[in-house]
């Protein structure tokens, strides 16, 4: 790992170099009073004032709607068309947060747990993650309780930490990260060992450990806590759609006469329709069962089956919820009691 220093005034020069060489650069831009990830064309497009974005950046590898393949029927022949290679382009995700970068690990495990999802993998391989350490946090942030942290380097290719009003520390972890440094080598100098990254990081109190949640819910399938917590839940998909780890999808057919395409689009376990059988029977018949699934999937099934947790503590679900289903609050209450 290399530690470098860049002057804050040079960061835009570096980013403009990246934008010139990399076909797809995604970064937070101003969105009303908040921020959202979007394609950027200029370094000045980046919005640094918001702690985080409304949506996660998962769509860079797992778009909300994507074509799996297209088909055309001509008499007895049917032709299939795969997604063209030019759809998979080198991508830099700029100013991701540590909770965004870590999220690609569980996503990658899900998309390779048994079937190797070629479309996801091809997109993900092309991504370079430039993460900015957090020097601020809001009341919804809880990354330290899920194993991350405001300066966590996990899964980032490079990490920028603003040290003071003049300079930032740039840590380079991978070959992909190094390639971005090489685009503007002259802007960097070796970092002095005395630089204290930890001193500038946000202080995010740990409220529980993910293992604690795991242990408390493993026998809690029949607990009354799910109904109590989910009573106000409206059953929309906002939490799942902004979540950096939620990967549930639906398969749809866009057919027009003799041609069409098969589509994969986001879905959510919060929807009643998600588990509704054709017969009308629904094995998750109420919101309590659906909320339980959400928590058990992330904190029990995923660690047990994939050896990774499904929550990075970004807090987006809580910020997006119309009825303030604050996940930290719910998880804290799970951690502080025994449920059977």
């Amino acid at each position: 790992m290399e530690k470098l220093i860049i002057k804050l005034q040079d960061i835009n020069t570096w980013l403009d170099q990246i934008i010139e060489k990399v076909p797809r650069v995604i970064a937070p831009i101003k969105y009303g009073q908040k921020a959202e990830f979007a394609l950027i064309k200029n370094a000045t497009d980046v919005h640094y004032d918001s702690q985080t974005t409304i949506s996660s950046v998962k769509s860079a590898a797992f778009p909300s709607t994507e074509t799996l393949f297209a088909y055309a029927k001509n008499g007895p022949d049917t032709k299939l068309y795969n997604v063209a290679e030019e759809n998979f382009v080198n991508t830099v995700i700029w100013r991701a947060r540590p909770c965004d970068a870590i999220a690609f690990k569980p996503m990658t495990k899900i998309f390779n747990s048994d079937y190797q999802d070629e479309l996801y993998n091809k997109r993900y391989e092309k991504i370079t993650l430039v993460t900015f350490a957090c020097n601020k946090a809001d009341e919804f942030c809880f990354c330290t309780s899920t194993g991350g942290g405001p300066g966590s380097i996990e899964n980032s290719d490079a990490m920028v930490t603003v040290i003071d009003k003049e300079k930032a520390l740039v840590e380079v972890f991978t070959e992909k990260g190094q390639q971005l440094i090489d685009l503007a080598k002259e802007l960097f100098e070796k970092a002095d060992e005395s630089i204290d990254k930890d001193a500038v990081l946000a202080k995010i109190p740990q409220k529980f450990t993910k293992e604690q949640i795991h242990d408390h819910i493993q026998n809690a399938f029949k607990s009354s806590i799910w109904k109590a917590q989910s009573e106000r839940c409206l059953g929309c998909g906002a939490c799942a759609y902004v979540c950096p780890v939620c990967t549930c999808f639906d398969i749809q057919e866009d057919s027009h006469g003799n041609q069409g395409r098969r589509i994969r689009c986001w879905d959510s376990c919060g929807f009643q329709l998600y588990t509704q059988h054709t017969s009308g029977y629904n094995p998750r018949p109420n919101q309590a069962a659906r909320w339980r699934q959400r928590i058990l999937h992330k904190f029990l099934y995923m660690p047990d089956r994939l050896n990774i947790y499904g929550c990075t503590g970004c807090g987006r679900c809580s910020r997006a919820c119309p009825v303030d289903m604050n996940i930290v609050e719910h998880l804290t209450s799970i951690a502080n009691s025994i449920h059977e």
Partner: protein
Amino acid sequence: MSKISEKAAALLQEGAIKMIIGYEQGTEHPRPIFCHTPEDCKKLIFNDQCKNNLAVYLTKKEIVDNDKIGVIGNFYVVKTVIQLFLENQIHLDHFLIMTVDEAGDIITFGNIDEMKQYVASHEPPANPTVLAAIEKIDKMSREERWAYWKTELSKCIRCYACRAACPLCYCNRCITDVNCPQWLEPWSAPLSNIEWQINRIMHMSGRCVGCGECAAACPLELPIGLLTKKMGMDIKDSFGEWKDGNVLSTYKVGDKENFIH
């Protein structure tokens, strides 16, 4: 304990009411709370930040059973209850509908007429920001308006928070969930997002109570509340003041429009 908490706790203690739905302080704003015990009632609050339209819960089978439920809601909850009643979606004897006056005292509605009277005299003024935004869009050319809505609705992720937060979106099976035939494309794409909102607004026209919770629920803060508001204004211009019922499915021989005769 506040007057609201005291009254709510007393209602639960008397035993006639099994649960009270009201507001409690949330992380940043008030949020819905379900009080099952007098102890829960201590958390009840009421102020002008209590925006959630609690009537959304009154048509959910998993919440409403044979036990009587108390609701301490805002103006729009009362207005929605009237609409749900007129649409034969709720039995009023399952609920005790309440709101809170300026002095912090609970107002209890004994019947639908009392609710109608309250609603007729307490309608909050229209939000000037919303009206200004509508005026701005009205002044746009057809092309500009199309570009505006296409840009805005392209951002929609189809999480259906607008649908879920709306107390009048109570269909067991929403048109967008029907796939035989597939009326609407259920995936997120500019045109299908526009189609979805057009459907939502048309289904709301003449029924929407104007609570604005669809827009408040949108995680992407899309201006979808302008659509329901504008539709409400157009309905009012064409068919008169909100009275009751569903204006687009109410036919009278004396209607002034010729196409229907």
